[in-house]
């Protein structure tokens, strides 16, 4: 081996080792310990006994209605959020790259909600849904639309979608903007000369070339929506009557509400597997559709 190669390796190690070390100690090791905990019945107090139950916790969670219901809520929420966030994000990005006078201001405004933390966002919107909506309903007479959304099981879930969309749409917009700006002007111009209308230019040129951005945005919204916790906690606390309890919140309640550490841990592992499987599938599918020009 030449000295140069060895030197390269040393540099490589110097830069990766610290990161690897941190990653191992704060992610890999706790994760492995977590898998271990999912096989015991334990209340989380070190002094109390941990009883080994094998796959007992996993069997139990299959019969846990509340967990399965929370799975359904999470899926419904994720699908709605995924569609809304990306459609709006894409619309916004097309809007602000359309050389309008207000595009810079609009860009900032659309992105701003993303700078507010999820917890605070939840509290702000809680006020909007409970007080502002009721007020609007009373003033305009549209009480069938403007009422306290948070006390209706279905509408509370929609409220979560609205808040999540409000937070994420601006973020995906930025990624789509970057993608759109990466598309060379000559392609669009050539198409225009050939007589393609806006719709054709969008579907035949812009969208195919935007696939890398779609991959990222879909991935971010998918995993973000699946793992949602902060907005869930501050906006609805899972209520009313557990109608908006998502996966992450169910796990939190199992561990800290009931003190079923092992069972909660088993749920967390299952949760991880599901999130990883779904997002990986999505990345593989959308990657395949990415085109080069």
């Amino acid at each position, binding site marked *: 081996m030449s000295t140069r190669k060895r030197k390269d390796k040393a540099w490589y190690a110097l830069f990766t080792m610290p990161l690897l070390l941190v*990653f191992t100690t*704060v992610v890999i090791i*706790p994760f492995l310990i977590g898998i271990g905990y999912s096989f015991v019945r334990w209340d989380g107090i070190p002094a109390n006994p941990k009883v080994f139950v094998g796959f007992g916790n996993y069997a139990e969670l299959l019969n846990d209605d509340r967990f399965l219901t929370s799975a359904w809520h999470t899926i419904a929420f994720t699908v709605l959020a995924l569609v809304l966030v990306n459609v709006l994000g894409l619309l916004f990005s097309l809007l602000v790259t359309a050389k309008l006078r207000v595009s810079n201001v609009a860009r900032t405004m659309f992105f701003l909600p993303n700078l507010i933390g999820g917890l605070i966002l939840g509290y702000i919107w809680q006020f909007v849904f409970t007080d502002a909506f009721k007020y609007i309903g009373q003033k305009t007479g549209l009480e069938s639309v403007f009422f306290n959304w948070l*006390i209706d*099981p279905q509408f509370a879930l929609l409220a979560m979608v609205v808040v999540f969309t409000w937070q994420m749409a601006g973020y995906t917009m930025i990624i789509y903007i970057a993608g759109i700006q990466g598309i060379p002007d000559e392609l669009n111009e050539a198409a225009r000369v050939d007589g393609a209308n806006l719709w054709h230019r969008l579907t035949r040129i812009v969208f195919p070339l935007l696939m890398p951005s779609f991959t990222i945005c879909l*991935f971010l919204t998918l995993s973000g929506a699946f*793992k949602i916790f902060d907005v869930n906690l501050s906006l609805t606390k899972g209520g009313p009557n*557990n109608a908006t309890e998502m996966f992450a919140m169910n796990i939190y309640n199992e561990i800290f*509400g009931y*003190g079923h550490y092992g069972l909660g841990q088993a749920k967390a592992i299952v949760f991880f597997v599901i999130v990883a499987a779904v997002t990986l599938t999505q990345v593989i599918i959308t990657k395949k559709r990415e085109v080069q020009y």
Partner: protein
Amino acid sequence: MKKVKKVSILLTATAMVGLLAACGSSTDGNKESGSPAASGTSSAAPEKLKKISLFQSKVEIAESLEALAKTYKKETGNDVEVWGSAGDAYATQLQAKLAAGEGPTIFSVATGAEADKFKSYYADLSGEPFAKDIAKDMALTDGGKVVGVPYGVEGFGLVYNKSLVDPKDVTDLASFTKTLEKVKADGKNGFSLSQEAYFLIGHIINTPFALQADPQDFIAKLNKGEVKMADTKEFQEFAKFMEAIKANSPNPMEVKYDTQMGDFATGKTAMVHQGNWSYGMLKDYGDLGFDVGMMGLPLAGNDKIAVGVASNWVVNGKADADQIKAAKGFLNWMLTSDSGKNAIVNEFKFIPAMTNIEAANLDPLSQTVYEATKNGQTIPWALNYFPQGIIVNDLAPATQAFFLDKKMTGEQFLKNLDAAWAKGAK
């Protein structure tokens, strides 16, 4: 375009790592989250007591407690580090800190399921001078040993506006309902619960439990499924109370603690189901223009308010011997010295559960609780013996369903409560 693609891969990878990290921390995060400042073991000069740390759940007394620690330092030269209170997340944080071996020397636990949960940590306090001064049956014990000192007693019941309601008119279900209707006819609101789990169901359901011959035994049987609330007389009447409340008062799902007390303070609501702690809120409104009182929920002829110990001081037995000694020293000072006693009564505003501390300057609600305690006119806090977390996790959702579904009857509500209990007690 190539560049965009590379960036996309990089971004995807980073986000993937983020996902892993997020999952990792949700699975095991609580073990890592003990604050580094928590150790507090820097040993001071050997002749004085070791520096100790204190962690407790009541946000209301946080400032006064820090002031007390300063006084302690001035009077004795010893250090007590008061950690910030965590409010609702207290038990979670305490558990995380203890599990990480960075637990506080002195901490607080709620009587009942929470005290049971942490009992492997308690140091024996039986031999301490203050132990004999704890009011009868109020100490936290473990197998005959005194392990915890009560903060003080607290009480809850129907807090009412004396200019709108006469307690003589609220003696049973019929008169309670009639009062609600009468006040409603006057354009005001007779009664209000609020959306927080304890204020929605936790406290009000205490009454039918406390009226059982042996509440603890009843709860044990309920846990095993040997009895049902739906078959028990007191609960059947409780359901009728809840029906009356649903029919005649605003939906508690739309009322927050703030609004509940605000409407009460401004005379819009005649009665609320609350405790003496709520006076702190009323005080912010200045002169109310009316007198407030507290009475028992008139269920099955009950006329007593529910009084119990909410929280206890305990010493972490897993701390080192010097720290335990220092912790006991601090508790002794707080509970027997004049400055300590003064702080408990006048700064913390506790209703003392110690025979050597005289209550003084109590607000009207606390005064009622104090007198009821002295006269024995109280019912116990059965809710302390509920399975851990059941109020927030199971009973509250069932109650939300009851208040949200206009058609649900009290009978159906009781059945749902039974089902919820069966789940929570598992």
